[in-house]
């Protein structure tokens, strides 16, 4: 998956996991867990959805890379084959 597609995907999943959130208003380096007031269960829902959509296992040790739009996009782009 290329980086742009990954970015779109994460925004889509965020909007789904946090009803009422507008991910397009997030800045790329902002910690969205804080901004969107996500608790650990919300975050797990996000990771689960991302894992389901990308097929990546997303181990717990990598959670810290998944706190920002840029972080997620970079992670997904670098762990999937470009399509």
């Amino acid at each position, binding site marked *: 998956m290329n980086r742009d597609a990954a970015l779109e995907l994460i925004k889509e999943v965020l909007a789904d996991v946090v009803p009422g959130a507008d991910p397009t208003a997030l800045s790329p380096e902002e910690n969205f867990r804080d901004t969107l007031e996500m608790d*650990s*269960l919300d975050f797990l829902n996000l990771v689960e959805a991302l894992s389901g959509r990308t097929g990546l296992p997303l181990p*717990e040790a990598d959670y810290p890379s998944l706190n920002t739009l840029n972080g997620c996009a970079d992670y997904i782009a670098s762990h999937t084959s470009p399509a």
Partner: protein
Amino acid sequence: MAEFTMPSLGADMEEGTLVEWLVSPGETVTKGDVVAVVETAKSTIEVECFDSGTISALLVEPGTTVPVGTPMASIDSAVAPPARPAAKQPVTPAPAPPPDLQPVPGRPLTRTERAVSTPLVRHLAEEKGIDLSTVHGSGRGGRITRSDVEHAPTEPPPRLRASPLARRLAQSMGVDLGGLRGTGRNGTIRADDVRAAAVDHLPREAEPREPVEKPVLASPAESAPGARAAIAALMTRAKREIPHYYLSTKVDLAAAMAWMRDQNTGRPVAQRLVPVALLLKAVALAARQVPELNGHWKDDAFVPANGVRLGIAVSLRGGGLTAPALADADTMPLPELMAALRDLVSRARGGRLRASETTDPTLTVTNLGDQGVEAVFGVIYPPQVALVGLGRVIEQPVAVNGMLTVHPTVTATLSADHRASDGATGARFLTAIERLLQRPEDL
């Protein structure tokens, strides 16, 4: 003949509003079926019935607010379930409710409606989308009978079935409910259907976005003002009646977090644990070990509870708070507790709790750790006698065997009712939590 009454969905609930019926007269119900959606000052709740049989009459119309205990439907338990499905007509003629049971309608009735129709007829008319003022009454004194409504020409627009949350979402997302196909019971449109539709619209409508800066999160002003008032009333009562005392302890989570990481390794995301699941299990086990804190204060005495029903304080998006009960938290294995917690929280936020989950937790836990605070000293939910507060899991310097090191820790607090327990009891409880978390494999 059994009655389905407005249930008490919490110690502070005096009345509720019927939002919608999920059953119609003639339908067969089994004990535990969700039959209605009720809105309280705090949330919207799916209500189960406690009897099996056939719905013989719906006595209250959607939109009506009635006190707790008011009969809302009658269930004919003697009638055997009909063999054929979808029996839409009542098996026995539905009696009109006695005058004192006449619901207070949500919308003022026109004189015609009031004078010439019964609630049942009005409900039927509403269901079929018929304007009663256009129906000729063939009954005594021009009364409109059920048969009049049944034979009236129906107008094409059928009543749209959608959950309250779906309606709110549709409004805020600009989705036309009329164009959606519902995946819920009887084709009811659910919130997920609306979200799916909104996502479908996104790519096409992404561009024409107004340049005005919009908030990233929806504003709290959207939540019902009644919810604030309900919390205000309950918390005022708690602080007026309950002499609170407070204790706090810092718990070393090194063992628990290492064990959890180990458990989560190699597991698919859906089966992973989060720290709060371990903490809740420890709290539930501690409540069993120190039963003086698990129960209710009733009639000037403490009544210990059978079993642990943990109230989980869930902050709602857009403001507000609800504390549904997680039953059997002390006996449930950890993976099950984790799954139950995820389900409960997502439904609490989605506005669809079940009645059995809103009644009488025996001890409530508030977890503000995810909001970044280290410790929370909460207010007890009457008639409970204690509230446990969990803060954020943070890396902190700790001394281990005389050496300074850094471990994940959490601050656990206890607010307790001094009428029901003393500080020594509270201390025993917090110490139990601390000890249980040192042996995560036994949780």
